[in-house]
Structure formats: structure tokens, C-alpha cells
């Protein structure tokens, strides 16, 4: 992965074009600028598909601006404002560790250090030498009940600790596909870890 070089060219491919058409069609005529976030996402996914790294090169932002008839600066603003758009190349697995208070209280530091250990990197924003992992610090992912959370690409991996994080990442490293998303301790959705304590059938309705 030649990660640090801007591509010399960016055009939407056939699959992306179809998605672009769908995204633009969602808005009334003359308001197609509203599709800017969708188009940036399509561009990022196309980069992932073609290069294995999900990011939006500046050229792609220019293409989006041109397609929507808005100033390039407006697209730069949006692409850099939202953390979900990567303006630099990332590894095949983008490790987005939530370190906001609930996750931190539940041990996100362990998740961070496991990521560092397996990927062999020293801090946030770095990519592993094999180009497999990039670790990013993110703010609350909204999954606090199942904290700590590690988002890999689009999926949440929940209830992690040091060992389970390492196991997960080592599996990826050895070439396994991403496991099903969700709790790593097998809990169902966000139900209590220690089994259900409320709304049980044996509770009698209050007289």
C-alpha cells in the first residue's frame, strides 16, 4: 500500500456512479448540494474497494465539488469536519477506539494498549508497518452500555478487554475475515450481563 501519495486521478467507477445517482436523486432539483456527505462516503468506499484503504483524497473532494456544482472549499470543510471521513490513507482495518468517559471507566485504556501491542504502533493516528491497522481515537460511539467499544471499519466490537482485543486483532492479522459484530462476551444486544433482573414473568403486577 503506497499510502502517502495522493492519487493522480480520481473518477467514480460504475458501482459508485450508481450510488451517486441514487444519492443525488434523493434531493429536489437544485438542492443536489445536500448529497455532499453521501458522495464523500461513496468516494471513501470506492477507495476502500480499489486500494484497500478507506480514505478521501483531495482529488476526490474536487470531483465531488464539481459534480454538485459547489465550491471545493465547501467540500474540504465538510470532509475535514466529520471524523468519519479519512483525509489520509488508513490501514485495511481502521481501529476506532472510543476513549470517552464511559468506555474509559470500563477499560478502554486496555483496548488501546492491546491495539498498540498487536499492531506494533506507538499511538493514535499511526498505521502498522504491514498496513493492516490504523488506530484512531474517537469520541463517544453511543454504545456506552456495552463499553468499551472498538469500531473496526463499520462494525462495533463490544465488551472488550485486553485479552479479547488481542485475540480479535491477532485473528485479523493471521488473515481471518472480520468476525460478526457485537458483544465479545456473547451477551444479547445490550441486555444485562448478569441476566435479566426486570420484566421477568414471575413478577406480579402491582395491585
Amino acid at each position, binding site marked *: 500500500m503506497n499510502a502517502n501519495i495522493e492519487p493522480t486521478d480520481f473518477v467514480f467507477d460504475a458501482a459508485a456512479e450508481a450510488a451517486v445517482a441514487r444519492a443525488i436523486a434523493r434531493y429536489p432539483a437544485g438542492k443536489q448540494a445536500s448529497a455532499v456527505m453521501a458522495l464523500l462516503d461513496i468516494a471513501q468506499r470506492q477507495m476502500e474497494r480499489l486500494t484497500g484503504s478507506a480514505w478521501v483524497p483531495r482529488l476526490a473532494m474536487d470531483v465531488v465539488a464539481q459534480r454538485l456544482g459547489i465550491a*471545493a472549499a465547501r467540500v474540504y470543510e465538510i470532509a475535514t*469536519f466529520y471524523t468519519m471521513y479519512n483525509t489520509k490513507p488508513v490501514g485495511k482495518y481502521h481501529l476506532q477506539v472510543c476513549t470517552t468517559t464511559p468506555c474509559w471507566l470500563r477499560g478502554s485504556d486496555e483496548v488501546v494498549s492491546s491495539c498498540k501491542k498487536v499492531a506494533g504502533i506507538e499511538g493514535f493516528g499511526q498505521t502498522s508497518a504491514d498496513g493492516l491497522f490504523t488506530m484512531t481515537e474517537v469520541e463517544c460511539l453511543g454504545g456506552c452500555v456495552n463499553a468499551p467499544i472498538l469500531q473496526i471499519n463499520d462494525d462495533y466490537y463490544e465488551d472488550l478487554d485486553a485479552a479479547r482485543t488481542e485475540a480479535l486483532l491477532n485473528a485479523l492479522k493471521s488473515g481471518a475475515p472480520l468476525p460478526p459484530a457485537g458483544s465479545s462476551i456473547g451477551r444479547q444486544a445490550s441486555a444485562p450481563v448478569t441476566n435479566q433482573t426486570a420484566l421477568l414473568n414471575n413478577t406480579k403486577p402491582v395491585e
Partner: protein
Amino acid sequence: MAKVTVDGIEVEIANGSSVLQAAEAAGKEIPRFCYHERLSVAGNCRMCLVEIEKVPKPVASCGQPVADGMVIFTDTENVRKSRRGVMEFLLINHPLDCPICDQGGECDLQDEAVSYGRDTSRYEEGKRASAQPDWGPLVKTTMTRCIHCTRCIRFSTEIAGVPELGATLRGENMQVGTYVDKALSSELSGNLIDLCPVGALTSKPYAYTARSWELRKTDSVDVLDAVGANIRIDARGAEVLRILPRLNDDVNEEWLGDKSRFSVDGLKRRRLDRPWLRENGKLRAASWEEVFAAVTNKIKASKPERLGAIAGDLVDVESMLALKEMFTSLGSPNLDCRQDGAVFDASQRGFYLFNTTIAGIEEADALVIIGSNPRHEAPVLNARIRKRWLAGHFEAGLVGVPHDLTYPTTHIGSGPDAITALLDGTHPFAEVLKAAKKPMLILGAGALTRPDGAAIHAAAWKLAAQFNMLNDDWHGFNVLHHAAARTGALDIGFLPGPGGKSTAQMLAGGVDILWLLGADALDTQAIGADTFVIYQGHHGDAGAARADVILPGAAYTEKDGTYVNTEGRVQQGFIAVKPPGDAREDWRILRAISAYMGHALRYDTLQELRAHLAQTYPLFALTGELRRLAGANLGAPAGDRAAVSAVPFEPVFGNYYQTDSISRASPTMAACVEAHYPNLAEAAQ
């Protein structure tokens, strides 16, 4: 109208006005950083907080619309406390490097910190620092000082029409910039410096030059284009250090083109500061006495009809009048102010003025631009057209070279035959003009320099007449000049008299003695080898290089001068510094030499000259203001409109930055050419 009470003062203000405007109407000053009258409301600095009755929290007054019966307090303890809080937050990441900041002394943040700042900082953590991106040769960036007011972003997007600036990243990391490294491509970029309330954007050429309180400020008029933008000349000692725009809603609002603002260093270079005399093919320094004698002998030995004078683009009306009257008393009819060789009917003012007026553009609803690029020839006027376009229901068509004018234009054709297509109704834009209530056209002065210039003039007039542009209350025919001196010269009839020769005829050997009053834009190669050339002017440019005698004159910052802008507005500039060395004000030179020749002009002081000017040409009695001309019953300029050719129009200026002797002498303008026209800069080397 809404009735509101501000600090006990009752004011009536239009619905939709903001609380801040209501407070200003009541004479209350509201501190602000992001709010600007001419930009959209952002409401992100929070400095303009006020209290409103029945509203529990302080309100940002810039973005709060007034409501009838609103009771507003702008100076309560709570308001002051809130503003102090805002100020403390603004200063958290501000470096407080005022001693080394060029904005110091004229900084909004500094001024407001006097009222709302704490004496010491409570903030002990590290401050944010930012990179200093390169925005080109004019605007110096120190983004660490930026308080994120976004005025520059809004200006470039809304007024300049070059949306290159944006706020990238977010929160504490937010950066105002271009994201991609590049120089700002606007001709109005200097205004970002005025707009920036802090020292984040300062003038690059003026960096570390002076403090605002050291400067002597003089009101004047810009002469580097024909808009006549009102300027303030800031000088220290004998040196003009910078030029800033002055507020005039009828002309330049508060903007100024980059050339007009930054050419100021050209005033110190290549100056003619002593008389020169050509001897044996070489110029040598001479005394005034010597050059007077040389000129007088030459003129006395020549027949009057073999004398000619051409006035340049930067000359004040007084000098041109003195030269004209001297030539008249010598008996020569050979005068021309159109050094570009244009020949057109100037028998009525309406034929050569920007009749709609600059402020009048805002009333128009359709526009045809013929043979002009207003973005380069008059950037401030172009901003006014863009302002009109932004207001909606406005269409513009362009005949000539297609340009990005910062508003969309329909390209009607490349040559003047497109005017015929509009007249015939064969081009669809004719329908737009027909439907318009107040259509206008702008004829570039460059179009009149062509061989078929008079025909284009007549055709454009016919277009105006046919499409309802010439009425009692609307005059939609406009000539956009690019030379500040031109309108004034035409007004005083600095034109060939009966039997007199035009510029082209004078250059082609029609005269033995040619007096160039600041005329540099003509083809000096074309002047006959045995023509004796007298150059009177301030810069060693094309005219001086060809001259046999050089009379050192004064640049526009160095003399009291009257100028008439393209609308026909008579404006006066004042002297800011003395001309360098032996150079003198031009009318004085002419007065002195006329006496030397025994044809003394009738005025000894500028007051007498101006009184004489106003008496001879009454329109000069009214300065600053403008009476709009009615468009109806004017006749039509001479010229056979059928004679228009199909030869495409060409750009008047090869580049925006170097168009006259002052801007050509300016290193800053040269740097701009290098940044924006790399091909040109390379060719020049």
C-alpha cells in the same frame, strides 16, 4: 416598522432588522468581531451579547431579529460580565503578541480587550498554535492569532466571488484557509486585511513597516482605474506607506482593488526626480532653467500646427486644463487624451459616461457587457455587479472574451457582430433584454480603440435605444473606462480642435514636437525619429525612455488633483507627500513654462485654476456628488453601426496587476504577476 426600546431610548426600525442594528440606531455601540454590515450574519464570536427583557439568557444581538415592543439593554452588569467571559475565551488561544503584531494599534480585539479584558490571564495551559499558510504575495497569514470570526471566508465567498477560503477541521483544531496551498486568486484580496478584526491577516508588503499612530492620513482618490475609489493615503515623513479604502457607498462601498492598494511601493521606484535633457542621443541630468530654455527654443522654432500634446491615464484635470490652454494660446489644435488611439463621438457626456452610475447597477435587472472584463478593468465595480446578481432576478450577457466574472454570464459572441445579432433578435439573449425593466449595457473603453470603434459605439447606443435602456428615469448606456484621467479629459475637451490631429496622426509624424503628459501607454516606437518628445510625468516608463526632455511631475499622492471617474463624478484628492527631489506639481510646471514662453496662463494658484475650471466647465463646480443624466432625447453618437466587423474582441489588459507606470514600477505587483501569471513572468525574464 418595529418599535423597540434600547436602554430607555425608543427607536423605530424596519422589521427584520437585528437587535444590533436597533442598538446602533439608538446610538449604542455594540462590540463585535464576526458581524459586518456587508457580510452575512455568522453569529460565532458572541461578543455582541445584550440582554432582552423576558429572555432568560444574554442574546447575540447580531443574529436576533427585532420584534415590536422589545426592550433591550446593552450595558447592564450581566451584559458586561457575559462579554468579559467571551473575551476571556477569545483570548485563551490568542497569542497576545501585540508588540510584534502589525495589527497593533488598529486591532478590534486589542480595543475591545481594553473594555472587556481581564488585567491578567487565568489560563495556564498551553495555547494552540497554527501553521502559517502562504496565501500569495499580498496577504500575510498568522493563523495562530485567528479568532475564527469567518469574515474572510464570507468575504471571499460573497463579495469577491472566489470561494477559496474555508474553515477546515473542527473545534479547537479549526483552521481558516485554502486547504490546498495556493495564492488567493481574487483582485479584491487586500480587503481581507481590512476585514480581519485581529492580526491573523495582515498586509505582506507592509509587514513591520509602521504603526498606525505614526501615520499621517490624507483623503484622496485612486487613479489606477477609472472607478475613482475613495482612498486614504497613509504616509510617514516623505514616504507613502500604504493605501486604504475610504467609505463611499456610491462608489467603492468600502472595498479597494489590489492594484490600487498595493502598487504603493511603485511610487518610490523609477521616479523622475530631476529634469533630464537628451544630448547626443543620451539623457543627462539638467536644471529646470536648461529644460525650460530647450523646450521654449524648440517650440518657438516650430509652427503651431506642428505641435501636439497627448495626455495619459493618471493625470489630474487641472494639469490637462493648463496644458490645453497653453497649447490653445500657442495656436495648436493638436490635443488628444485618448493615447490608446480610440476615436469615438464624445460630443455629449452621455456618450462616454457610465451613466447608470455604480450604485445604479443595483437597480438594473439585465446587463450586456461588450468588449470588457470588468473584473480586471474595475474590480470594485465588478463586485457591485456581483452584489446585484446575488440579490437575484438578474441576467448578464457577455460579448467578447469569456471570463470568470464571479457571476454567471451568457456568452453571446466574441466579436461586435454579436451586437448585430442582439439587434436583429437572432440571439436568444435579446429576449432577456426585451423582458427586462431596467436593462443596462457596459461598453468597455477597450472596444473603442479598435478600427471599428466608432461603429461599435454607435451599435451599442442603438442596442441601448432599442432595448428600452434610454428613458427619462433610466440611462442604461455605460462606457467603462479604465483610465482615471479619461473622463475628465473628455469633459474639458482635451481632444483635437478644428483641423487638429488625433493620437494616431500625431504619432505618425503629424507633429514635430510632441508633449506627453504622463502618456506611457502609447506605442513609443511609432513616434517619428525626428519628433522632439517632451515627457512630463512621474515615472521613468515608456514615455520617458523616448523623451528628449523630461519634466519631472508629481504622482497622484503628491498633488491636489481633481479626477472624474467613469460615472462622471468629480472628486478631489489631497496632497499626502511632496514630490521627490526637483519634481513639481504638473500644473505648476505648465504655469511656469507658459510664462517662460511668454504665453503666461491666467492663474497663479490652484484656487484660481480651479475657479477658472469651474467657470469654464460648470460641472466641476460640484465635487463628490453626481447628478444622473436622463437617457431620453440625446440623439445618437456619430458612427456607422453597420461597419462593425466580426473580429473578436481582445482582452484590454494582458494582466490585472501591471497596467500603468506606477504598477509597473511596483515590486509587489511584479510578485503578483509571478504568482498569478507564471507564463508572463517567465517571458519578462
